[in-house]
């Protein structure tokens, strides 16, 4: 980082905190602090929803994922617009009219206290783990790329977030999310422009797109149905819709966003805005990754972008043969790339077919060398290699000009802060509304609950920082906790589906349905190889089926009596 980068980073972060403090002033009641007094317009809620969902690690790794695996990850979001339409038609008016602070508060109105308590506990466990890791994950990557101490990065992010979140509540969070999304868009656009501008003379944008597509990096749609394939059109549409229904319909970190709307219509518009903007945004991020891939067709990339893994003496001593094979494959691929451009421009079909085969062979050889390098690191050090997370930031810090590096690092901070602030705010809300006010202190003054909400927010922020410091020592836990999220969402979705769609089901059906759904998901996780996207479908269906069965028995028993 050069002086200009530090200036850009400092100014951007300072502006986020100051803007948050400014917009959050005047939150003097619990309603203002937790729901912004229900005054928010649709565009602010919509951008806040997108900012909360896009964590820093998603942003960092999505570009890397495209570099390695192509653009097929975009299909993961195909179910999102379907979910947004369903939620706009069902959850939004129901939650608004129920006049609740949390989604789980509604479950008590609809079912009973034990169902609300179980759903709240599931949320606190799952989101509590995720909040710590949302801080830890970008800190680990930044520490490797920039050499910053990860404790310092975690503490810095935590301190910045605590400042405006504790003081300003959700109003501050929503408006800073808007600002953070604008910074993210600027950073992404600048990265794409630079990736294209850094291509060698003689390689046009169309050539770049052609070269990326020729080795499957632009595989945005895969029509083949495969239960074990995480990203295809069908898993994206069905599994993705269920995941989005769970996340946006049952996760308080998202529900709270659209509960701040000044009307039902404004809340609906915020979700529908997300439905229309999210897929193009993800496509754009993945396309940046594809262009970074093309840049590295002409500039030799390292065998592994995580340089700390290669720097270990025991790895360095054995990496030479891998480096040699990698260099040979790279030279061959670069040569084939140039010839392919030439053949395409000359409309020479025969030369094009031959060169294309050569280009793809070289890409396979390069991938094989990379995999050998990763295996070598894993066998020598015993650590899992997750190189995808380091690709984009490595490109940024090595090749982008002064000022832009600072902007992209600010984007990583902004994305991390946006998701963490939303998470700790929702954790505090559930703690106070569903636990403290419901079970500990039932009838205190508004001022008392406001202070308790501020203290709970500070508690969850400090907890996130502490957990992040612990979580960073066990890198593979990040993947485990991502998986953990999907282990719970299906159950939550099932209980809300019962609440909204099946009036005959009552408390026992919902509660035991949740337990059965959770058991089914854990069984699928433990005993099958089914992709995690389908867990939400399985859990939801089992909850609904069990709830219905129990309600049938209950109704029969009442008739007999």
């Amino acid at each position: 980082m050069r002086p200009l980068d530090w200036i850009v980073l400092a100014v951007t972060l300072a502006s986020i905190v100051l803007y948050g403090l400014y917009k959050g002033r005047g939150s003097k009641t619990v309603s203002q602090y937790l729901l912004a007094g229900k005054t928010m317009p649709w565009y602010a809620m919509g951008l806040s929803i997108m900012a909360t969902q896009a964590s820093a690690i998603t942003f960092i790794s999505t570009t890397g994922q495209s570099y390695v695996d192509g653009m097929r990850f975009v299909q993961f979001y195909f179910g999102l617009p379907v979910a947004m339409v369903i939620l706009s038609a069902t959850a939004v008016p129901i939650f608004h009219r129920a006049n609740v602070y949390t989604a789980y508060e509604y479950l008590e109105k609809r079912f009973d206290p034990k169902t609300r308590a179980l759903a709240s506990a599931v949320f606190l466990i799952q989101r509590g783990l995720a909040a710590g890791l949302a801080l830890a994950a970008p800190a680990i990557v930044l520490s490797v790329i920039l050499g910053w101490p990860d404790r310092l990065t975690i503490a810095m992010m935590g301190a910045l977030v605590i400042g405006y979140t504790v003081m300003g509540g959700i109003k501050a969070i929503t408006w800073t999310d808007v600002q953070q999304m604008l910074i993210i868009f600027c950073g992404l656009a600048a990265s794409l422009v630079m990736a294209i501008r850094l291509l060698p003379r003689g390689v046009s944008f169309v050539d770049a797109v052609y070269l990326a597509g020729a080795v499957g990096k632009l595989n945005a749609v895969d029509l083949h149905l495969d239960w074990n394939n995480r990203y295809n059109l069908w898993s994206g549409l069905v599994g993705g819709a269920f995941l989005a229904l769970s996340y946006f319909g049952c996760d308080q970190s998202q529900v709270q966003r659209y509960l701040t709307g000044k009307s039902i219509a404004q809340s609906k518009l915020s979700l529908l805005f997300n439905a229309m903007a999210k897929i193009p945004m993800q496509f754009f991020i993945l396309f940046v990754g594809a262009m970074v891939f093309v840049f590295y067709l002409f500039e030799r990339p390292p065998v592994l972008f995580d340089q700390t893994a290669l720097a270990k003496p025991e790895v360095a001593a054995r990496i030479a043969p891998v480096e040699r094979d990698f260099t040979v494959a790279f030279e061959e691929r670069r040569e084939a790339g140039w010839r392919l451009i030439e053949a395409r421009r000359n409309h020479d079909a025969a030369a094009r077919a031959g060169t294309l085969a050569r280009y793809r062979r070289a890409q396979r050889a390069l991938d094989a060398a990379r995999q050998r390098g990763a295996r070598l690191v894993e066998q020598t050090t015993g650590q899992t290699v997750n190189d995808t997370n380091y690709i984009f930031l490595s490109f940024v810090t090595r090749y982008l000009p002064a000022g832009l590096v600072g902007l992209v690092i600010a984007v990583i901070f902004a994305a991390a802060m946006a998701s963490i602030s939303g998470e700790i705010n929702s954790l505090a809300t559930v703690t106070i509304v569903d636990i403290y006010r419901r079970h500990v202190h039932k009838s205190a003054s508004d001022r008392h609950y406001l202070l308790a909400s501020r203290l709970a927010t500070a508690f969850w922020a400090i907890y996130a920082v502490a957990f992040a410091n612990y979580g960073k020592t066990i890198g593979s836990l990040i993947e485990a906790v991502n998986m953990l999220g999907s282990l719970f969402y299906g159950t939550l979705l099932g209980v809300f589906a019962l609440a909204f769609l099946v009036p005959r089901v009552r408390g026992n059906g919902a509660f035991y349905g949740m337990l059965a759904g959770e058991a089914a998901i854990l069984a699928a996780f433990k005993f099958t190889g089914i992709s995690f996207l389908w867990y939400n479908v399985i859990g939801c269906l089992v909850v609904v089926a069990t709830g219905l069965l129990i309600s049938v028995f209950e109704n029969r028993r009442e008739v007999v009596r």
Partner: protein
Amino acid sequence: MTPAGPDRNHMPDDPPPFLGSWRRVYAAVLAYLAGLILLFWAFTRAFS
């Protein structure tokens, strides 16, 4: 400690600012999704 705002139990579901009804807005969003998928499919076919 209840959320502020008008009487939420009788909160009206205002019409959307465009297209006349929410059903039409939902249909437009789903049509947009279908269009995007078609576009991405054509993109995949054209460059892979």
